[in-house]
């Protein structure tokens, strides 16, 4: 059985393939990177214990479903605070200190608005935009229909829009 997950080589390959996405998925839920990594490890421990039962092409679904259950079982859900890094350089050299501040303010506002979204909307939005996971795949991860995923992300985007507009109006 050379592709059995009970072989450490294969198990490790699954880890390399899924660990980061799974940790990020959990971060979008709980907003705490250390906790996300712990829960991600717990999910992989369950995968190891079930290595005989999980078929190679069900690994991802097993991990995400398990992680979801583990998250729901964590005793306390603290208030979510999100914090992202930016992977782009400042657009041009003639950035004024004012525009830099405005940009940071916008980022902070958006992070807070995303943190305030209902957890499943936040998950859909960030899995799609940051993890670049397609709506079909998200539907599979969440166990819902694709049209439900469409509704969630559209709702999420409109809530973010309202909160951004509020910020702009306050400026004027």
């Amino acid at each position, binding site marked *: 059985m050379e*592709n059995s997950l009970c072989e450490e080589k294969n198990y490790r390959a699954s880890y390399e393939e899924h*660990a*980061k996405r799974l940790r990020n998925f959990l*971060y979008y839920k709980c907003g705490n990177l250390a906790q996300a990594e712990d829960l991600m490890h717990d999910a992989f421990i369950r995968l190891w214990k079930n290595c005989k*039962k999980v078929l190679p092409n069900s690994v991802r679904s097993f991990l995400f479903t398990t992680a979801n259950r583990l998250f729901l079982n964590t005793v306390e859900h603290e208030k979510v605070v999100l914090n992202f890094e930016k*992977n782009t350089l400042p657009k041009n050299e003639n950035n004024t200190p004012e525009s830099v501040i405005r940009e940071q303010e*916008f980022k902070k506002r958006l992070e807070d608005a995303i943190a305030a979204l209902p957890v499943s909307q936040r998950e859909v939005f960030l899995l799609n935009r940051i993890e670049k996971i397609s709506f079909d795949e998200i539907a599979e991860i969440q166990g819902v229909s694709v049209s439900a995923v469409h509704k969630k992300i559209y709702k999420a985007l409109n809530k*973010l829009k309202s909160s951004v507009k509020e910020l702009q109006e306050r400026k004027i």
Partner: protein
Amino acid sequence: MSRSDEKEDKVIRWLEDSISAQELESLKSDNDFDTYDKIISEVDAWELPDLDVAVSYDSLKQKLPHAKVVKWYQSTSLKIAASFTLIALLVSYIILWDTDQEFRTGIAETKEFILPDSSKVVLRPQSSIKFDEDTWTTERSIELQGRAFFDVNKGVPFTVSFDKGSVKVIGTSFEVTSITNLKEVVCYSGRVRAMLSGFAQELTKGQGLVAINETAPKSINTTNNWAKNKVYFRQAPLSVVLRSLELHFDITIKPQEVNTNRTFTGAFVIDNVDEALDMVLETMDIDYEKINETVTLR
């Protein structure tokens, strides 16, 4: 389609990057578009700190239990041979048919599978399930031959079709038996909608529907819970039960003059052949002699 649905549709396709130039123009004229665009281009540039996979894998390894205990009822050599066949089959199916997945069990083999949505299937000997992975997210549809127990996770509709019938799930666990001369559906938790020989019925916990030989289906009730190491029969012809014993233990049963049309209600264990034979034959008051793999009834 209402205006707001239309807008949602365009926004979705814009997010997916599958919008036509014409539709994009009309979306751009929407009051909200600039804000949408500003949000999306901001968020698309975000990322989380990288994960050092090597370091984090090492710390995971310290937490892994070393010995794993998974009970199996068959001998190791048989198990390895059977698993190997299954993997070979699986690989060839993946290569040849791509999205159509089929899993089967051989004689004396009971196997548990986790489906793509993490629902569980326990497949009894000489059984198979088939499903299309491509359409799985919109419709979980399985074709079954033989006997299998299902523990279904919530989600889109889950349907099991078999010769002469089908079961549509409302969220739950149930067992389907589709073997020669015995078709049976038993619901163990939740609710299912069963179709059997054109007869439809909604079943709740402990209720079942059984059709023996080619007769019309009858309702049955059970207080048993489903158990992995036990196989239950309710008013099943003895011939069917004997055949099931043969498949579970890879033995041959010679009924001689014994009337195998009598019905049997009860169970046998699947991890001990002598105990299993006693559970069926003693109950039915039938003597038997077992020499190697052959059982002769008297």
